[in-house]
């Protein structure tokens, strides 16, 4: 079952692993944007770590605190989108102290819809939305954290490969147009790293 304790475990892993991913993400983002994605995620992980001891047992309210950690770091679109997804999951889990792992795909579905609405993005735009969609599909019907993480990681990596040669159609990367072709989307790679951090064997 997903509990606040599971969230604390994830936060601990991110705080430990994200600094090792920062340079790669900053560089990817710097090719097409302002190059602070890795730094922002490290700062967000720091805020999450600060918040972790006081997270409420209610999983929904704990997810809300996590969303606030992202919005408190910066006004970046990526942080706002992740916070939006976390809040959508918070709405579905509020009032519960344990959520069956089999609901993860449903939570990802709610997160994806909210993120698409917030950013006016579509699937295939070559953004983090494509990564969430891949994870949502791959995690349907799975009910252990090991299986969920393995499936999500494989699916996001596949989405990243599939979209590498696509033209970005959203956000700053869109403005760079053809320059984005052949490059991995920083937002997709960031989500991939966030998932990998949670798998001790795969962690960067």
């Amino acid at each position, binding site marked *: 079952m997903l509990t606040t304790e599971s969230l604390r475990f994830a936060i601990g892993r991110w705080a430990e692993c994200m600094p090792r991913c920062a340079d790669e993400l900053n560089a990817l983002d710097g090719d097409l944007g302002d190059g602070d994605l890795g730094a922002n995620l490290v700062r967000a992980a720091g805020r999450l770590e600060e918040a972790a001891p006081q997270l409420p047992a209610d999983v*929904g*309210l704990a997810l*809300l605190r996590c*969303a*606030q950690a992202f*919005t*408190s770091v910066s*006004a970046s679109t990526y942080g*706002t989108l992740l*916070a*939006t997804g976390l*809040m959508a999951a*918070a*709405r579905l889990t*509020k009032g519960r102290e344990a959520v069956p792992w089999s609901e993860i795909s449903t939570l990802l579905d709610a997160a994806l819809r909210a993120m698409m609405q*917030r950013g006016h993005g579509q699937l295939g735009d070559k953004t983090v939305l494509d990564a969430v969609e891949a994870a949502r599909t791959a995690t349907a019907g799975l009910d252990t954290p090991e299986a969920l993480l393995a499936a999500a990681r494989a699916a996001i990596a596949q989405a990243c490969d599939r979209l590498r040669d696509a033209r970005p159609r959203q956000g700053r990367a869109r403005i760079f147009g053809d320059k984005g072709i052949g490059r991995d989307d920083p937002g997709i790679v960031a989500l991939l790293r966030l998932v990998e951090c949670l798998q001790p064997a795969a962690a960067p």
Partner: protein
Amino acid sequence: MMKKILNEPRNYVAETLEGLCAAHPQYFRRTGAEGRVLVRPDAPIAGKVGIATGGGSGHLPVFTGYLGPGLADACAIGEVFSSPGVDLMADAIRAAHGGAGVLRLYGNYGGDNMNFDMAGEMVELEDIRTTTVRVTDDVASAGPDERHKRRGIAGLVYCYKIAGAKADTGADLDAVTATAQRAVDACRTVGVALTPCIVPAAGRPTFTLGEDEMEIGMGIHGEPGVRRGPLRTADEIAEQMLQMLLTDRPLAAGDRVSVLCNSLGATPLEELYITYRYVARRLAGLGVTIVQPLVGRFATSMEMTGMSVTLFKLDEELESLLLAPCDCPFLRI
């Protein structure tokens, strides 16, 4: 070159707020991260619908000036011309919440919309009920068929006034929201810009206009307007503005309106009164009665030269709410 009275550009907003609160401690108290949320000292007021607003700096008295009895309760404040973040907006909502829910009332700008929507979702998970009304009075920013896309400018002042007065009657959140929306629907504004302003951190003018040019419909951040041309006389400018306003929302004999002649910053009161004089004559000629005119600096763009004219069409309820008492350093009725 940048010719402004300032210290470190990065301290522009913090020092402004420090001075504002030092000058008017009976009206403003700072709270939130880095003191970027201003609230009425007596907020939250138990049982009253709260009114939270917010937006970028550089427009005083909008947004944060209009806190007080009969007006708004809390304001989230961003950098110059930048939306405040989600957390500040959520703090403003919490500070305004006296148990009866909170109306988010602000100008229609992309960043503010997204951040205030998220802030609303956040506080709803904390069981604070909120509603939204976005002010969309700038007729130059989109056509009549896309009124929801229009930006919010000086009409904000009327919307704060009406929503604040309605909340003071003890009305519930839905009623305050509906009345605030009616105020938005009754407001039409158009502006004209003569010279640009300078964002302190950028140090450069936000746009350029020729020595003898003006631009009708320019936004309060220098967004392009509808018509750029040679500078005209005061009466010709006023006539052009009135025609745009009256085409968008015709008035008939017997109608009652309030008129706001607003300086965008540098334009002096004299020129506002010259314009008001023309507007008053023209409306009298149409058989329209003016109630509670407002002339002065209400919604600015720092040192921009220019002005805006707002027509606020009244009905019985809006008129009585407009004339209800309110008190802040920049508006007393």
